[in-house]
């Protein structure tokens, strides 16, 4: 009886040892980075078939056990290597940042407006894997002759974003996002805001009244773009006359008929300018 138990135990031990030996066929690489050479260590002897499944990868290859299998994996993520039915999983980390995807909105904004420009950045390595480790991203916004803005934001899960005020000066603003060795530039056109201190003056002419604004500017002193509509209104006991004129070379002009006891006013958008009384009366 003792002999039988001894044989059974010996068989069991051999079985276990063989199983352990088989289990040691392939192991995970210590630290794998996308785009770098990786070695998959194997143990044992003889040949076997390696199956490798992972992002962008499906491979079947005859390998010699006991040697290291060289691999170059482009995509980061989780891989499964199978040899002799034994599987190991391992992670491949993204390489350092070398590409920045930058969404800047909007492309045109009024000057001197709060929280109006947004920038969102996604960080990628050279093989376009999302780099999820926290990385500082520097955002710069500047217009020629204006006060530049600069902020550094730490990325979270591969993303960094910012909200900025537009500058006081109108013009093409350079909006730059930089991380690691990569930087991307976008242009945000900062335009003058609504007119500020809208003023007009009046001149009697042979046929009526000529009205003309002073140079139309926003509150930061930027000239309001040509083409912006300015409305002149004449209110008299006979009724109301309205003339729309576009700003041309910084000023808006209009010709009104001869008026008696009328009040002239000027407006552009929601901004109302000065009033002038013409034609006697009052």
């Amino acid at each position, binding site marked *: 009886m003792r002999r039988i138990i001894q044989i059974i135990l010996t068989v069991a031990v051999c079985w276990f040892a063989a199983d352990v030996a088989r289990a040691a066929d392939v192991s995970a690489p210590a630290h794998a980075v996308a785009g770098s050479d990786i070695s998959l260590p194997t143990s044992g002897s003889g040949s076997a078939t390696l*199956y490798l499944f992972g992002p*962008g*990868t499906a491979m079947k290859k005859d390998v010699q056990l006991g040697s290291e299998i060289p691999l170059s994996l482009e995509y980061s993520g989780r891989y499964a290597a199978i040899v002799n039915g034994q599987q190991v999983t391992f992670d491949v980390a993204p390489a350092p940042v070398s590409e920045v995807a930058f969404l800047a909105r909007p492309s045109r904004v009024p000057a001197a407006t709060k929280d109006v420009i947004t920038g*969102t950045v996604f960080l990628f390595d050279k093989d376009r*894997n999302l780099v*999820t480790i926290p990385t500082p991203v520097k955002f710069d916004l500047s217009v020629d002759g204006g006060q530049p803005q600069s902020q550094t934001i730490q990325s979270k*899960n591969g993303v960094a974003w910012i909200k900025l005020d537009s500058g006081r000066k109108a013009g093409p603003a350079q909006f730059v996002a930089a991380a690691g060795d990569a930087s991307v530039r976008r242009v945000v056109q900062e335009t003058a805001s609504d007119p500020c201190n809208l003023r007009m003056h009046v001149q009697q002419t042979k046929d009526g009244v000529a009205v003309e604004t002073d140079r139309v500017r926003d509150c930061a002193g930027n000239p309001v773009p040509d083409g912006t509509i300015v409305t002149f209104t004449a209110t008299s006991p006979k009724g109301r006359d309205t003339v729309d004129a576009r700003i041309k070379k910084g000023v808006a002009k209009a010709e009104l008929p001869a008026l008696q006891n009328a009040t002239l006013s000027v407006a552009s958008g929601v901004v109302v300018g000065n009033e002038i009384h013409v034609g006697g009366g009052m």
Partner: protein
Amino acid sequence: MKWFGPLLVAAFLLACSCWIVTAQAASELPAVNLNVGDAGPRQIEDTTERALQRDYAHAWGSMEAALNDNRADILNSDFVGVALDELKDRVNQQQKSGLRTRFIDHGHQLQAIFYSPEGSAVQLRDTAQFEVQYLDGDKIVNSEQRTENYTVVMTAGENRWKVRVLQAIQAQPE
């Protein structure tokens, strides 16, 4: 003209069977449970939430079918950019080696973690549960039950959200 009636019936039956097959495929989409409560800086609107949930489920359905049948063409409507390139590379390599990957999907806990201020990109975290089978021809080489964490970026397309990044990440220690 005697054959016209039976032909019409046959065409009708064929159309019905096609509809049944399509309906079955649609009902086989994986279960996706989306939580948008922690998304920022922009709040996700109800319609966007429903669209993301639907399109993400559809993307997984396409990916599973593509990797099982080695068909890269069905990925185009749900994936874009690096995610599309990566999946096409895998399907091509599977085709060359006579390999396949089969998923038995047990569902996705999807959490929106970032919605870009201008509303064109969403980042999500997916905890996916599935059984994955690796096949050499029709022989299963190995299979395993997996709970996998993915970081996902979806961007707004013409009429749907498409997956731009689908990257497995190591579970962070608590």
